[in-house]
């Protein structure tokens, strides 16, 4: 079976003080090739944990992740990662960062040069090839991270709040870029975000998770990502159903937060 299957995953962290945290409980879902799924949920509901398990950085206490027919046991180049920030290599310039994956495979510049330069152009970094990472703005750094991931040609791209640290305007431009790259490359993408708008705009599928224990609360299939491709993201916000979906999800997350607060009050 092709695609990415998350099968009955549970994750429990045993803390040094003897207690334990049930970060995920019985999470199952399947992504077909080329799907973009955004994941929303109140903070602490296990989104990052789920992504780390899919990436292979964490082994779940129960269940498994199956990718194109084989079980995930560790990180691999088939599953690329884009972090919120701080994951670029400051000791390399932009082009060296982007070509890191191919170079680690032992490829010569003749093999990766064209592709890397193309990606740099697509992400608008063409003029900054030789710049040092610390000379770039936050938005440009995230474009480097995106290009670096794509240059390695993974089957699945995992993004943990990749745009979370950017200002609103930069963020909007980057959302357009993510959509464009997704359509052009046909990659399977899981994108974690804490912005409801971003999740609706980018997610072909949208997963809302609930906390304590972390679990899937509800899943949506949305038309807005396809509308947004190549178009105006702001116009999409006036499309039919957008406002209703947004209100519904906001309400849902609001209630979850209320519930958490209530439970904390009770514990006191």
């Amino acid at each position, binding site marked *: 079976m092709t695609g990415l299957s998350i099968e009955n995953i549970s994750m429990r962290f045993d803390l040094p003080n003897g207690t334990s945290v049930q970060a995920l409980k019985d999470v199952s879902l399947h992504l077909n090739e080329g799907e973009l799924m955004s994941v929303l949920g109140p903070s602490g509901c296990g989104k990052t944990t789920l992504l780390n398990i899919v*990436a*292979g*950085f964490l082994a779940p206490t129960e269940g498994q992740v199956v990718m194109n027919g084989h079980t995930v046991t*560790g*990180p*691999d*180049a088939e*599953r*690329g*990662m884009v*972090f919120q920030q*701080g*994951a*670029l*290599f*400051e*000791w390399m310039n932009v082009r060296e960062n982007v070509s*890191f*994956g191919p170079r*680690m*495979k032992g490829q010569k510049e003749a093999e990766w040069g064209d592709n890397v330069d193309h990606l740099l152009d697509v992400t608008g970094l063409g003029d900054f090839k030789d710049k*040092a*990472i*610390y000379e770039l703005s936050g938005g440009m750094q995230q474009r480097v*991270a995106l290009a*670096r*991931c794509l240059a*390695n040609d*993974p089957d699945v791209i995992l993004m943990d709040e990749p745009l979370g640290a950017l200002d609103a305007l930069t963020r909007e431009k980057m959302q357009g870029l993510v959509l464009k790259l997704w359509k052009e490359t046909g990659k399977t993408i899981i994108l974690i975000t804490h912005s409801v708008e971003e999740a609706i705009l980018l997610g072909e599928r949208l997963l809302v998770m609930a906390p304590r224990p972390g679990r899937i609360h509800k899943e949506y299939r949305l038309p807005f990502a396809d509308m947004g491709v190549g178009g105006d993201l702001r116009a999409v916000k006036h499309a039919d159903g957008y406002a209703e979906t947004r209100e519904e999800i906001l309400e849902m997350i609001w209630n979850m937060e209320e519930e958490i607060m209530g439970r904390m009050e009770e514990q006191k």
Partner: protein
Amino acid sequence: MIGFAILLVYIAIFAGSFLIVRFLVKKATRDFTSLKTVTFGDESAVTSNRTASVVSVLTIFLIWGSFTGSAWVPGFLHAPGPFVGETSFTYTLETADGERDDATVFVRVVDFGEEVEKFEVDPGEGIARNDAVAMPASRSTTILFDKNDEATRKDGARVVAIDGTPIAPGDEVKTDAGRFTLTDKGAISFAPPAGLQMEPIWLPPPEAVVARMVEIASEGYRDSTLWQHLGYSLFRVIAGFFFGALLGIPLGYAMGLSNWFRGWFEPIVEFMRPVPPLALIPLVIIWFGIGETGKIILLFLASLWIMAIAARAGVSGVNISKVHAAYSLGASKLQIMRYVIMPNSLPEIFTGARVAMGVCWGTVVAAELVAASEGAGMMIMVASKFQLTDIVLMGIILIGVIGFGIDILMRKAENYLVPWKGRS
């Protein structure tokens, strides 16, 4: 007394130059900081005032020159010097029978470094006879006035007045000539005004230090030229640091990457870290003697722990996202080591290297003070035994300058090799 005077002068120059510079250069600068209204408490608005630095260094030389009577400092800026030249006083002798007679003591006070030569005067008439005394400046001397007197202290005669002022054993009498006391045995102790200047044997003037430096640079001291002495010290530091880094950095990496290595070496490193390298000098001398091997091993030990701890901190300081990203991009463990862990630890390693170089430089000088046949420390140690204060001072200044130079070079290398430090 002199120390207090120097402190006062120093504070006066500090405050005075501040007011002068403030008054003169007040509106001269127009940068962004000068537009800030809140500067007190804003550390970024505090920069090192270049004028203050220059005045500070000049002040040190000024005070040094002024209180040593340096030829480089104009005479009117000199602190009052000691009395030099001829002076005299009279003492009144009373014999056991109650007879009294006056006699004059002629004193010739010669300047620092000049020969003290005896001279004769006309002894005059009476029970008490005139005396001649030669003495160096800024000292006190005991005058055995009765060597030529008809009635001596053995006969029961004693001094009852100096220049007409009554005096008894234990009393102190001050006149224009200087300060007088009587010793327990009744001799006159005389000290002419000492002034506020330092004797060269305590603190030579700057030109003497420079002259000595020129001399030692060309003729050498203790069978080695100045450059050889400094070269030996530098060589030991570089060799010791090199081996320390060569072993310490891999050790630190291993401790940052493997449980077993960390468990094995942690007790050793944590134990050795607080042991000052100076405390190892005796053991190193017992084991390896005072030759090069011992010194280099000492400096090796001094830098080993610092470099190991720095390298370990460099590994643990890596943002886990970087390592995860590299794994997801298909890097192997070896490649993670080479392309992520090692470059990421460079800033910490440089910080460690700067500390280690400083410690090594201090340790080598100390080790040479204890035992060596050449080196900067040995030079000042031997010179101090012969009270050659100018060589000691010169040595201290050169040691400071070289230590400072090493740190600047390390910082330059750091800026060149680790330009991203503190900017991500």
